[in-house]
């Protein structure tokens, strides 16, 4: 089985781009990734593209061939939809295709356009990641779902909003030097606690923003990299995906995320590593509680222990296990269908040493990315390693 290397990464600025179409955003990211990789255009064999709500936000279904066109190709192009984990599965399927020997070069990534919708319409659009009959019709929103999980966590394990506020403060600090991040603004614990409530106990500053943006990666086989002298020191050495019941109320427990545990177990086994080997991690922190659930699901903390990690300084940039050095979804932004690809792009930059936060992890060799769909009814985990 061949290895898979990240030959190039491309990101747009994450933020508000009301005047730009999804095709324009993805075109920018894809072009940047291809230029960085140096791969010949005609060598790209397929495009694996993540997008969640383009049919609602831009009245544009069937986006994948459109994106191929924007890159200058008529190659096979497929859209992957897994709610907020759309790009995660798009990348995972690219990894599997390269490993199987079916392809040597795939362009993978994703895009989402969201800020052109009203708050109510975004709320409605995002809610479609939940169970329509039993959750959406009962007034559940995306922040509301995580609020239900946060309160269930407090009830099961303890912890308080102030613990979660430290997650937000940390991720905003990490985003400060990141040129692609939506927010370049430090915040305080008090600001998080005093922010207006969206869905109690989730406040405005516990939530990721509404974001437009795109991400793209050029993935190549080891053989292709060697043959074409591609400079690609970072490999994707493990991939895993896990599932769970769609509706929160159908899960056995409301404050643990077995889909993440399943995805992590598969990815670690695939890479031949364990949670102990991980130097840094990018997790799906769409809400502050989501980061806590993620670092527990990934095996870095026991259930009930992750909530204090940011407050204790363990997951800050200078801590033992930096979490979300990119700024995370919370501060870098969360263009839903682009997020999973963006996490891998950021991890690649961090491991290569060309990320503004690479100095915090200069000896790092192994990083993990975690991309979750909905209330973690799906999760995709990747292990990335760099040649040293």
């Amino acid at each position: 089985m061949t290895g898979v290397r990240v030959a190039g990464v491309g990101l747009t600025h994450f933020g508000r781009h009301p005047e730009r179409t999804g095709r324009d955003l993805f075109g920018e990211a894809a072009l940047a990734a291809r230029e960085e990789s140096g791969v010949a255009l005609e060598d790209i064999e397929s495009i694996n593209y993540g997008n969640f709500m383009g049919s609602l936000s831009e009245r544009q279904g069937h986006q994948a061939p459109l994106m191929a066109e924007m890159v200058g190709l008529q190659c096979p192009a497929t859209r992957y939809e897994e709610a907020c984990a759309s790009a995660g599965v798009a990348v995972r399927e690219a990894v599997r295709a390269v490993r199987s020997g079916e392809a040597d070069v795939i362009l993978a990534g994703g895009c989402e356009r969201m800020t052109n919708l009203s708050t109510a319409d975004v709320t409605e659009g995002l809610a479609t990641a939940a169970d329509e009959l039993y959750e959406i019709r009962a007034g559940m929103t995306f922040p509301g779902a995580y609020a239900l999980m946060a309160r269930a966590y407090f009830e099961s394990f303890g912890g308080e909003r102030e613990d979660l506020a430290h997650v937000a403060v940390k991720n905003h600090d990490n985003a400060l030097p990141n040129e692609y991040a939506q927010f370049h603004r430090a915040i305080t614990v008090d600001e998080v606690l005093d922010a207006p409530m969206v869905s109690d106990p989730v406040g405005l500053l516990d939530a990721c923003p509404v974001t437009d943006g795109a991400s793209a990666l050029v993935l190549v086989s080891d053989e292709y990299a060697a043959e074409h002298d591609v400079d690609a020191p970072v490999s994707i050495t493990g991939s895993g995906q896990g599932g769970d019941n769609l509706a929160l109320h159908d899960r056995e427990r409301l404050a643990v995320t077995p889909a993440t545990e399943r995805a992590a177990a598969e990815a670690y086994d695939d890479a031949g590593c364990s949670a102990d080997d991980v130097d840094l991690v990018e997790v799906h922190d769409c809400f502050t509680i989501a980061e806590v659930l993620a670092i527990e699901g990934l095996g870095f903390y026991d259930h009930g222990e992750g909530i204090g990690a940011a407050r204790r300084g363990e997951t800050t940039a200078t801590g033992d296990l930096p979490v979300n050095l990119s700024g995370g979804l919370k501060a870098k932004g969360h263009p839903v269908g682009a997020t999973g690809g963006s996490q891998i792009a950021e991890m690649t930059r961090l491991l290569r040493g060309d990320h503004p936060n690479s100095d915090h992890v200069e000896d790092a060799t192994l990083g993990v990315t975690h991309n979750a769909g909905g209330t973690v009814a799906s999760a995709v985990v990747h292990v990335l390693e760099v040649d040293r």
Partner: protein
Amino acid sequence: MTDAGYDEWLDAVDDGEGYFLACPEGHGSLPPRRVCPHCGSTGLDHAALPSTGTVETFTICYVGGPDFADEEPYATAIAEFGDVRLTGVVRGVDPEDVTVGMPVEVTVGTNRTTGDDLLILQAR
């Protein structure tokens, strides 16, 4: 829009004859189902839904979707009813007064924005 399975279920709840689907392994689930979502068993029988449940977690939603514009703020809760849990809007108490462990009855009410049927967890 009609939804076979769900509409019948909601009507049954409204008539005070709520049910859930029970599999031979003892798992509970809500319709429409052809198999148990926990074990894949096709042997699903109707079992009586307890009329009273207990709030396990809740949120007070200040920003809803367009379908809930006239409800804000409202409390949505997940309550345990024996072998199943239900998600519904809490009524009969101020949203700020909802608590974990609070007993609720399941009923059907009306969504004030859309006029559609709405699953209600009524404070007792």
